[in-house]
């Protein structure tokens, strides 16, 4: 088995991809739920936001140009999959396109995201040499060192990157399934919690003396 990390291919869920068609002409399907986008070819960088009256029922792709280069996306993929790798029942962060989301986030023209931009970009640039051209052992060591680091800049980057990854992951349908969110379905009535839930609460009340 090669030491090289699996190459990250930009992807996005099919529903969003369909909504984007016409916006991103270079899109080409490469299998279920995976779309690869063509490289950015010239043109002016767009830095506007989506405005105060965007379409809500069928959101359009965020209009601002993306700033991350392939090395940064690749680094983000390794990091995101360190936070949330695939397991027997849930997909990996990179397979859900989380690196693309990180790109969307750090490229955004809004104050919160502009504040995060240098934190994430400097962090990715700092991690790239330790992850992209390293042996598997070196890579594992570099990843493990993140959470253990006492360096302020590293801690800030790790906290932000991990938080964005977790948020981006669990806001997807796959994330819903993994965390046990079973709502967002039309119902004729709300029956309230099950007898099992009520019994579990009663047991807790006993412990709390309530």
């Amino acid at each position: 088995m090669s030491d090289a990390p699996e190459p990250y291919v930009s992807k996005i869920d099919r529903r969003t991809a369909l909504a984007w068609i016409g916006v991103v002409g270079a899109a080409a399907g490469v299998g279920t739920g995976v779309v690869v986008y063509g490289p950015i070819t010239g043109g002016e960088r767009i830095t506007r936001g989506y405005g105060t009256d965007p379409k809500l029922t069928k959101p359009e792709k965020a209009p601002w140009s993306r700033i991350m280069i392939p090395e940064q996306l690749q680094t983000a993929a390794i990091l995101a999959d360190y936070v949330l790798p695939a397991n027997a029942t849930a997909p990996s962060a990179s397979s859900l396109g989380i690196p693309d989301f990180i790109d969307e986030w750090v490229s955004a023209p809004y104050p919160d995201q502009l504040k995060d931009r240098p934190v994430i970009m400097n962090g990715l640039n700092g991690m790239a040499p330790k992850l992209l051209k390293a042996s598997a052992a070196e890579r594992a060591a570099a990843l493990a060192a993140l959470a253990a680091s006492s360096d302020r800049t590293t801690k800030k980057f790790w906290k932000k990157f991990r938080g964005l990854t977790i948020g981006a992951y669990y806001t997807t349908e796959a994330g819903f399934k993994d965390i046990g969110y079973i709502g967002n379905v039309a119902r004729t009535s709300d029956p309230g919690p099950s007898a099992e839930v009520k019994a579990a609460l009663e047991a807790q009340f006993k412990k709390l003396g309530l």
Partner: protein
Amino acid sequence: MATENYDAIIVGSGAGGGMSAYHLTKSGMKVLMLEAGRNYDPRVESPMFNTNAEAPLRGVGTPDKPFGFYDATVDGGWEVPNEPFTVAEGSEPFKWWRPRMLGGRTNHWGRIALRFGPLDFKPKSRDGLGFDWPITYDDVAPWYDKTEKLIGVSGAAPARGLLNTPDSPPGCLMESAPPRAFEIFYERAFKAMNIPVIPMHGAVVTGQMEGRNTCLFATPCGRGCAIGANFQSTTVLLPPAMATGNLTITTNALVYQVDLDKAGKAKGVSYVNRKTGEHHSVTAKSVILAAGSGETARILLNSKSSLFPNGMCNTHGMVGRYLMDSVGTGVTGQFPALEGLPATNDDGQGTQHTYIPWWGYEQQKALGFARGYHIEIGGGRRMPSMGMAGLLGGDQSLVGDALREKLRNRFGSTIGFDGRGEMIPNDDCYCEIDPVAKDKWGIPVLRFHWKWGEHETNQAAHAVKTFLEVIDRLGGKPEGHVETDGKKAISKGGEMIHEIGTARMGHNDSDSVVNQYGQSWAVPNLFIMDGATMVSSPDKNPTLSILALAWRSADNMATIAKQGAL
């Protein structure tokens, strides 16, 4: 339009404007409604079942959409493009939430529909502070009944007779959805503190109601409701008003002035089209301002004439005075006892299913603040957002399966407690015309002045203390830094988006701008039918009262019109 002969022009299409249009058009009057924002149709524009993953930045709030991408608010929020306002130097901060859309803030509001109680109309008589209304609870009660039956409100329960917390008569309310796990959970702590927990009154159709769809028990109301199961002016009031054939709606019409005739009566209004910049004047037999307390005051103050050199109806300097908001405070707790509960669908009916009305009326003197707050409590296994890492309680090390396990375990284990309390009107809270600043069309803008009083900051401190006790009794821990100093824990002025006052009702033209029916003292065919007429700011969220008072005022106005006295 010039050929139409309107009985009334209504400025604004939210709770006050929508309700007055509903009643007047049904009474046979020809009405022209002017709305500053664009046309908006929740039936086709509500992103009800969209997931955050489909939205830019996973739906988080931005300056373009401060309450999140999917919030119904159009063209606005804390800032409206091209329409600034100012806050006076030396003032405490003031925030002003404005949408620019048909239906106004009824599209995104919290649907909490609580009646003011008997004490709320006579606060000064009780404790000597603030001002009494010229009306009593009994004057408004029949209109509350009618309003609840019209808009659809949940929260039916056996009459409890709690002080100043009115029970709606049988037949007014539908039953709420049952309490969710976190609601069953917190109730136990309040019960141990002898504080009653009762069904929330929510403007959501939870049962069978003629002509209305029942809630789908999914998706947040603030996104808008495509099936019209919650109350929005755009789904509940404006369609039946349009169906009478008596309502004309003009959108993008930013009204800036009430025009007077030589006899000193209102002959119409002037507005600028927000899209084209063109100015128009329209006429009618009467004018109703329901633009929201701030805009209503701004229009009056900008309507200067030889008769009213300081603004219409402002001879006694009452316009803009006694601006009020609700007192807001909040603490969130995390509860090990809620960890690992079996998966449940906690989407619920949009509003909270239960809440805590103010319980301390009898202890007010000992508490050190004169007026109380109710508690709105949110929690449960709601659709995940970008804030999910907050569930980890500061842990920065877990990854992989251990991380997944901790998140799964803690999902739904946090509860947010929010106080919403009464503010006593004071001389330091008001709005006026800024002598310099103007909007894109050259119209002078509002300048706000704000200062919380000690009754409010002490109340905020008490709320935080209460929340901490509840969290502790439930074996939880507060999240993040908790501010116990009321002056720091309290919300900013206007932040609760309950700004009211500015053109209050009263007994005569020296103590108020309008009479108990919203009819202005100075210009008899000029009416105000929004929150501007309110005399006090009870803890109960104001929308239901704005609706009930607007209906009462519109009914009186229709009677005057029938007598030919407009």
